[in-house]
């Protein structure tokens, strides 16, 4: 019988194995087991169970062997998944961060990436969107690539998924690898951070590898688990914009100023009527540039509605999730099956997400030597989002929409039969758009792995797997004429203004992997594991898109059969990766550890001469605590020193980037199409792998009876031969070409610390991670020392410069407000600036402000990131608090610029900082924002620079174990909990909702992807009640 040392209760599911053989058994519900031994006299039994210290007991001819397992909070004997295998955590010599996902289902988590926020040192998980069902962006140890993407490789149960990189807008246009993966099915997550750990994945490992393991069945009676939660979700913050009254104040000031400036002898005191006469307008006509609305000044502003658009569009949305799973098994079959339903209503009206997912993990022991398995996980999701985030989309328009409107139009200005308030901006009401536009994405994804594992001789196993990840995605959009164009246009054109589209893609990743592993312990001390393998990987994408042309014939049908015309096209692309790999792991008496791996990858993405890349790695470890001299220091339970070196690669470019292709450039002669074709760009047939080389030194330590354990790593990662779009002189006919040029270095350190602060009736554990990363450009193409990143909005505001962080923010510095004295002293001016306009720093001292005065003022990535989780348990209660944050980075916010730019017209609503603007020399305001009416234009400057520092209480969960209340035969455990996500936080981003938001392509150039915020939703704040029951 196996029991736990804590309270002597039986432990079911413990693995009992005769050491050095394949003979074994699993304990039943009462902790009992029976085992038939060979050579019983010398046999040693190994008792292992996740979360407990593995115990070895020599048999010595006893027939009953009872074991008492010690719980292990920082389990050194824990087996961790590594690429193509597992290893004892104690033997791992690379930098690996682990996330025990067993507690995911004790928290309302809807995406796997969401669960990783703040959990692991050196792993930055950015929630770039507040929209539902969107992938997070994950960066392991900073950003090393300029063009070829910085997202890690995801491997689920050994199946390497296709890598995805966000597009220029920061969205995963053809899906994120973690889409539709049900987090409640996850057992554990490992992040391989350094090249030594990751290099076994060769060309795709430069950005780290995330290994995800799903739940499997354990032998024993079926265990049925119900997880369910429900609650609400809402915005976590509101953006400080001018109120309607403040908007009127600013508009009045600007209109008067425009009037006075427009011609001599015009004064602010002239009434609207006087102005109308001066302008020679007939009665009833106004000129909104020079005349205010008389009603603004009237008490109660009759006929007008003063609105807060944010309050109209946001809501509390209902969230619910229900999962039922069953697992169990016997000596022939182990299984885990689950079904999950989730439904979320977004924080913005008319947005929602529904997903259905199922999983079956089944493993069959066909014989003593042959194991067969199948993991299959079909999922289906429906997401409704009429296009909330991003430039000129609903959120951006909502915050900048004029907060004063005609009362008769309600919240629907410029919708249907409503015209536009004369002093208002011209878009259609954001509420009208939310209610009438369709933006529906349906995704059906099935992830399948089948495998066979055959033991050729004891210790030597052959394993083959066939994996298929198939996603079918269909997106439908529909914008009825009622929320398109202007009133006059709608009247004239009706449904010809209606537009719609339908697009689909099918993405398929096929992977076949074959490995031979041999593991043996020689002379009891030499533990050797060998691995050799080959793999075939193919990704294919087929897409089709249809869109309406010339409007619709109906205002009731939303599908394209009602379109007056349809245009469409299809396209396909494919790439193949073939790999050979091998690894040696050696440990001498668990004291001296060595691991080395090599992988050779060939990719169809590269030219014939440069197709193959070789990625070696090596790492060593020394478990100092195993040395005799350390045994004398009992306070140290474990101490391991590690060092590693390795190279890995990045091949995240287009599928055909080395092949010169033709583009279609048509013309017309006499009204007839003339097809034109010409080379689409400059191609480099010798394009090769982007290379990443990492040195890592670290140690793991555990002291005071394992009450304090820590891991520390220092690394230096150099990416060379970057897949970089090298700028070309326009005289070549092109702007850039893809080449291997330049290098980027990331250096940093990371600490993970776990402490058991109190262990009595009140158990208090703390887990802390803290990391620092700095990156800088080491070299660019052929002698260049800088590349200015183009901008879709005005002049460049970011730069790649040798010695500086990637995408450093490069703008003019605002240093105050111009006074008459400044002007008299010949302060440097930008264009026709006057008193009350911003004062800028003349960096080059030439007496004028222009683009040459830009200086580097910030870096987009944080310098420090940290997360701290405190868990308290007292009797049946448990309380978990996760606080997470970052420091040292900056945001250059184009949303901030849109809402608070110099020269901004009065119709847009403006950021709250305009409250304290400069109004006159005697009323200079806060000294930050210049006068409302300024005509000098604008230059990219620090007005729109914000710190990205934040501290956020991501999660507070309070649970209560009902186990003691409902101890029955059927119910093994039950827990209720309440969770508050994102309830508290602090950041310095006043120009937008979310410091990590990215939704808009700032560079407008695929050569230098620079996603940024132009209207991203706030993080959702949710309050959820949940129940976990195990039968």
């Amino acid at each position, binding site marked *: 019988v196996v029991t736990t040392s804590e309270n002597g209760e039986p432990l079911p599911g413990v693995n009992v194995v005769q050491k050095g053989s394949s003979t074994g058994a699993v304990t039943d519900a009462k902790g009992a087991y029976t085992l038939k031994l060979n050579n019983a006299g010398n046999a040693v039994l190994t008792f292992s169970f996740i979360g407990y210290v593995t115990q070895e007991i020599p048999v010595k001819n006893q027939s009953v062997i009872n074991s008492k397992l010690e719980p292990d909070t920082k389990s050194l004997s824990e087996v961790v998944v590594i690429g193509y295998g597992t290893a004892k955590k104690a033997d791992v010599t690379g930098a690996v961060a682990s996330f025990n996902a067993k507690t995911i289902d004790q928290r309302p988590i809807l995406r796997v990436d969401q669960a990783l926020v703040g959990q692991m040192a050196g792993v930055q998980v950015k929630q770039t969107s507040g929209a539902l069902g969107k992938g997070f962006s994950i960066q392991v140890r900073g950003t090393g690539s300029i063009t070829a993407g910085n997202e890690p490789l995801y491997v689920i149960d050994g199946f390497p998924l296709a890598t995805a990189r966000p597009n220029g807008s920061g969205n995963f246009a053809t899906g994120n690898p973690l889409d539709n993966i049900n987090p409640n099915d996850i057992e554990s997550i490992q992040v391989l951070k350094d090249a030594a750990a990751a290099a076994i994945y060769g060309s795709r490992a430069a950005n780290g590898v995330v290994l995800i393991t799903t739940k499997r069945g354990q032998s024993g009676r079926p265990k049925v688990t119900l997880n369910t939660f429900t609650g609400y979700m809402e915005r976590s913050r509101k953006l400080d914009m001018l109120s309607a009254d403040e908007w009127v104040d600013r508009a009045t000031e600007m209109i008067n100023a425009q009037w006075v400036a427009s011609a001599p002898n015009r004064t602010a005191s002239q009434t609207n009527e006087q102005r109308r006469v001066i302008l020679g307008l007939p009665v009833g006509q106004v000129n909104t540039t020079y005349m205010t609305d008389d009603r603004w000044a009237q008490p109660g502003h009759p006929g007008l509605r003063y609105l807060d658009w944010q309050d109209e569009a946001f809501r509390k949305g209902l969230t619910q999730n229900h999962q039922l799973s069953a697992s169990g098994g016997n000596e022939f079959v182990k299984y885990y099956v689950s079904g999950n339903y989730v439904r979320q209503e977004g924080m913005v009206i008319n947005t929602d997400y529904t997903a259905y997912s199922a999983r079956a993990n089944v493993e069959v022991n066909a014989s003593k030597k042959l194991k067969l398995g199948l993991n299959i996980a079909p999922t289906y999701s429906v997401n409704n989002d009429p296009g909330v985030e991003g430039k000129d989309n609903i959120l951006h328009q909502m915050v900048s929409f004029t907060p004063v409107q005609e009362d008769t139009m309600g919240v629907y200005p410029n919708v249907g039969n409503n015209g536009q308030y004369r002093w208002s901006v011209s878009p259609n009401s954001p509420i009208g758009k939310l209610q009438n536009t369709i933006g529906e994405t349906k995704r059906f994804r099935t992830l399948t792995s089948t495998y066979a594992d055959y033991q050729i001789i004891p210790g030597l196993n052959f394993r083959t797997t066939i994996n298929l990840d198939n996603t079918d995605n269909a997106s439908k959009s529909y914008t009825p004429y009622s929320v398109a164009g202007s009133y006059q246009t709608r009247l004239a054109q009706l449904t010809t203004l209606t537009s719609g589209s339908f697009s689909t893609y099918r993405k398929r990743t096929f992977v076949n992997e074959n490995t031979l592993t041999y593991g043996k312990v020689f002379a009891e001390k030499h533990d050797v594991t060998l691995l050799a393998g080959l793999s075939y990987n193919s990704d294919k994408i087929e897409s089709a898109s249809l869109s309406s042309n010339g409007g619709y014939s109906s205002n009731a049908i939303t599908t394209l059969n009602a379109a007056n015309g349809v245009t469409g096209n299809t396209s*396909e692309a494919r790439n193949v990766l073939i790999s050979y790999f091998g690894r040696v792991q050696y440990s001498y008496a668990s004291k001296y550890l060595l691991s080395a791996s090599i992988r050779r990858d060939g990719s169809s993405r590269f030219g014939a001469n440069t197709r193959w890349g070789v990625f070696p790695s090596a790492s060593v470890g020394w478990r100092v605590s195993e040395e005799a001299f350390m045994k004398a220091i009992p306070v140290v339970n474990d101490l391991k020193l590690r060092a590693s070196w390795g190279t890995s690669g990045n091949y995240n470019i287009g599928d055909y980037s080395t092949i010169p292709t033709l583009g279609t450039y048509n013309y017309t002669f006499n009204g007839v199409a003339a097809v034109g074709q010409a080379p689409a760009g400059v191609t480099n047939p010798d394009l090769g792998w982007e290379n990443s080389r990492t040195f890592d030194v670290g140690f793991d330590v555990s002291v005071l009876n394992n009450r304090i354990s820590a891991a520390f790593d220092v690394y230096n990662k150099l990416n060379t031969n970057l897949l970089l779009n090298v700028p070309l002189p326009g005289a*070549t006919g092109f702007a850039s070409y893809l080449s291997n040029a330049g290098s980027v270095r990331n250096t940093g350190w990371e600490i993970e610390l776990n402490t058991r602060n109190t262990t009595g009736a009140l158990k208090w554990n703390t887990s802390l991670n803290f990391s620092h990363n700095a990156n800088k450009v080491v070299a660019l193409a052929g002698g260049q020392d800088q590349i200015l990143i183009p901008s879709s909005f005005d002049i460049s505001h970011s730069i790649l410069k040798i010695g500086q962080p990637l995408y450093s923010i490069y703008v003019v510095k605002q240093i105050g407000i111009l006074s008459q004295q400044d002007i008299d002293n010949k302060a440097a001016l930008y264009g*026709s600036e006057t008193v009350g306009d911003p004062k800028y720093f003349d960096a080059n001292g030439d007496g004028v402000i222009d683009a040459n005065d830009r200086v580097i003022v910030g870096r987009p990535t944080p310098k420090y990131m940290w997360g701290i989780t405190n868990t308290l348990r007292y009797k049946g209660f448990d309380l978990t608090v996760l606080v997470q944050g970052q420091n040292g980075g900056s945001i250059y916010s184009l949303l901030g610029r849109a809402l608070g730019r110099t020269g901004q017209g009065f119709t847009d609503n403006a950021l709250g900082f305009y409250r304290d603007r400069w109004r006159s020399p005697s009323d200079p305001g806060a000294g930050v924002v210049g006068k409302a009416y300024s005509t000098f234009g604008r230059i990219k400057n620090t007005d729109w620079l914000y710190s990205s520092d934040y501290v956020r209480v991501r999660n507070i969960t309070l649970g209560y174990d009902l186990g003691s209340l409902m101890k029955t035969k059927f119910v093994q455990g039950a827990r209720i909990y309440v969770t508050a996500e994102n309830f508290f936080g602090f950041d310095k981003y006043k120009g937008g909702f979310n410091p990590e938001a990215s939704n808009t392509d700032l560079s407008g150039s695929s050569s230098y992807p620079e996603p940024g915020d132009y209207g991203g939703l706030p993080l959702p704040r949710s309050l959820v009640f949940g129940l976990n029951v195990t039968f």
Partner: protein
Amino acid sequence: CTSDLTQIPISQATTATFYTQTNDFLQASNAIYNDLRGYPDRQLNLSETRSDNLYAVSDGGVRDWEGINSFHKTIASNPYVSDAWSANYNGVYRANVLLDQLAKNGKVITDQSLKTRLEAEAKFLRAFFYFDLVRWFGKVPVIDKPATANEVLSIPRSPVEDVYKLIISDLQFANTNLPETYAAADKGRPTKFAAKAALALVYMTRSGKTYDIEGPGVGANEWGNALTLLNEIIASGKFSLQSSYTSVFSYTNENSAEVIFDIQYQTGLSPVVGGTFPWVLVPDTWFQSQGKAVQGGLTIRPVSTDLLNAYDAKDTRKAFTIQSGYVYNGVAETRSFFKKYVDLTKVPTNRVDWPINFIVFRYADMLMLKAECILRGASGTQADVDAIVNQLRTRAGLAATTNVTLTQLLKERRLEFAAEGSRWHDLVRFGVVDTVIPAWITAEDVQKVMQPFQKNYILYPVPQTELDVKQGLYVQNAGY
């Protein structure tokens, strides 16, 4: 299965099998024409907007055209400016590729006259792009064959004379080898007369005043060369003035006898081969006031008071060219704008797909250029000049005049060609841009938002991205 590592694009054509049949060469030629499509917008943004025809000061000073109109020093990153460089060089590249392939693989074209024509077309277009470049930027790198990145990185900006040398030699080849007419299916390709028109304008531009800057005028006295070419066009008898001014720009009268060379557009084809220039200078709210969808011209670029006042009350061209004020949503816009190319009955469903052709060289222009050459000393009489001017005045509903001077001729050109993108080039060529513009700013810029004019602003700055590619490769134009 390592053979799977050789993948070829499924949905894109590759260059490997191109240039192997006659049709490939025709397609390669058509692709060069594709680079003409931005030309009209460019003339409106960089010539019309910079000139005294538009007082294009924008509300808050935030539109891209603000810096062009108001002589900002900081326009090296202006998208209109960078496009003028990159689009023309893309055209040069495609022409160079075709010429190179004609030399290497042209033997597959069995029709010798077609092969010669394709070469002459490519050279005409290459000269066309280079002429556009030299007028905006002065010195530009001369590249006359497909060049690698490294080669181009070692070619600095060539002297203006070298640029002209290539332009003139290309146009002379085109003049010799292009046909006089085309079959209907090929209407829109340049004829021999288009080459003559281009070459005449090149000679005249070269003959303009230097202003002590490097181009486009080099002080050459080639008015006579130009006149010869213009007379050949006139004498060919293939061209004539349309009876009314409006019919020249009619959507139903394209390829008329007044057109010597135009850039052609059509609507409803895929990929799009329609134009955007009709609305570039038209405010969005005007289209809305007419019940039409927003096109993309954004806010108004007002016609200058100076130009409005230059029209005689009887001039029929004014009402056709200029829209004076409108009311949208009860809000009055009292300023005027150019709507010359807009036919409200022809608004396409896709705003970038307008069908109207843009006339680059029209017969009226040839006549006026001839008058200009004569007044500059080429052979001819005052009576010839007066006759030309009166032909156009009569068509516009104005009384005849006599003893037309250069100043009057410039004014007549301004009225005839308003909104056609020629004003800035005319001011430069007539040698008066440095007097006319400062005077106009003083008179019209009551809001004091324009920067003072300098002669250096005759040329645009080399785009910042070009300077950044390799430090020191190109030297920026003076004044920027």
